[in-house]
C-alpha cells in the first residue's frame, strides 16, 4: 500500500451536514434500508439480499462469496424462506503471516418473509460465482393476467 497525503475535506460544506442528517433519518424510518456495507460481519452475519418481484416469480439474490454449495441450505416454511450455511476458510498454518483480513468467516443465516402468493412447490436455487439465486414461482391465481377485451 502506498502512503498518500491526506486531504482535508472541504472546510465548509453545509449541504454535507444536511445530507448526513437526511441519511440518518432515512435509516430510522425505512425498514428496508440495510447497512451500507455488504459484508456479512457488518450485519450480524446475515448476507446482503435483494428481493425482486417480477411478473410471475420472486427472485431472491444473496451475495455468498466463497461458500460451497454443500455448506449451504435453502428451505421454505410457509412463506418464510431461510438461507443458512457456513463459510469456511482453508486452515491457516502457523507460519502464515497475515497482513490484512477483511473477509469474514463463520456461519450465517437469513430468513425472509415472502408474500403469501408464492408456490412453495416451484422453487429453484442456483449458486454461481458466489451469488445465490432463488427463483420462487407465484401461484397461478396471483399472476397478472391479461384479459383481452374485444371492442365492438
Amino acid at each position, binding site marked *: *500500500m*502506498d502512503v498518500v497525503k491526506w486531504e482535508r475535506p472541504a472546510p465548509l460544506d453545509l449541504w454535507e451536514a444536511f445530507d448526513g442528517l437526511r441519511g440518518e433519518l432515512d435509516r430510522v424510518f425505512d425498514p*428496508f434500508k*440495510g*447497512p451500507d456495507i*455488504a*459484508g456479512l460481519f457488518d*450485519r450480524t452475519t446475515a448476507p*446482503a*439480499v*435483494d*428481493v*425482486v*418481484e*417480477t*411478473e410471475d416469480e*420472486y*427472485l431472491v*439474490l*444473496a*451475495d*455468498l*462469496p*466463497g*461458500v*460451497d454449495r454443500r455448506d449451504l441450505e435453502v428451505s421454505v416454511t410457509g412463506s418464510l424462506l431461510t438461507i443458512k450455511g457456513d463459510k469456511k476458510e482453508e486452515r*491457516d*498454518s502457523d*507460519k*502464515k*503471516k*497475515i*497482513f*490484512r*483480513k*477483511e*473477509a*469474514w468467516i463463520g456461519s450465517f443465516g437469513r430468513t*425472509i418473509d415472502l408474500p403469501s402468493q408464492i408456490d412453495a412447490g416451484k422453487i429453484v436455487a442456483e*449458486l454461481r*460465482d*458466489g*451469488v445465490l439465486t432463488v427463483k420462487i414461482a407465484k401461484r397461478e391465481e396471483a399472476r397478472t393476467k391479461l384479459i383481452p377485451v374485444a371492442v365492438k
Partner: protein
Amino acid sequence: MESNIEKARKRFTVPACSISEESGVVTVRMEMPGVGKQGLEVKVEGNALSVFGERPGPEPRGRYLLRERRAENYQKNFTLDDSIVHDDVDASLVDGILTLKLKVKEAAKPRRIEIT
C-alpha cells in the same frame, strides 16, 4: 466539470481483501460475488497492480422489495513493492473469490547464514 450523474457512473465497490504471506508467496484474496471470468481484468503496469471486476448485467427487472446488494463494479489498486516479482502473478477465480499469488524475489527473501 463532471456532472453528478457521470460521477455516479464511475462509482465502484472496493472488494473485501485479505493478504497473507507464506514461504515466499504473497496471497491476496478478494471477495467479488457475481463476477465471472469474462468480467474480470487483472493488470500489472509498471509497479501498479489493478483489479477490475464487472458485475454481470442486466439486473433483473421488476419491483425491488429489498435491495441491499451493491450494484457497482469492483475495483482495487495496489502498488507492488520492489521485493515482489512483477511479471509472475497467478490469478484464479472460484465462487466469487479472486485469489492472486505473487512471488517474493529471491534477493528479498530472508537468508539464513550458517554458523561455522
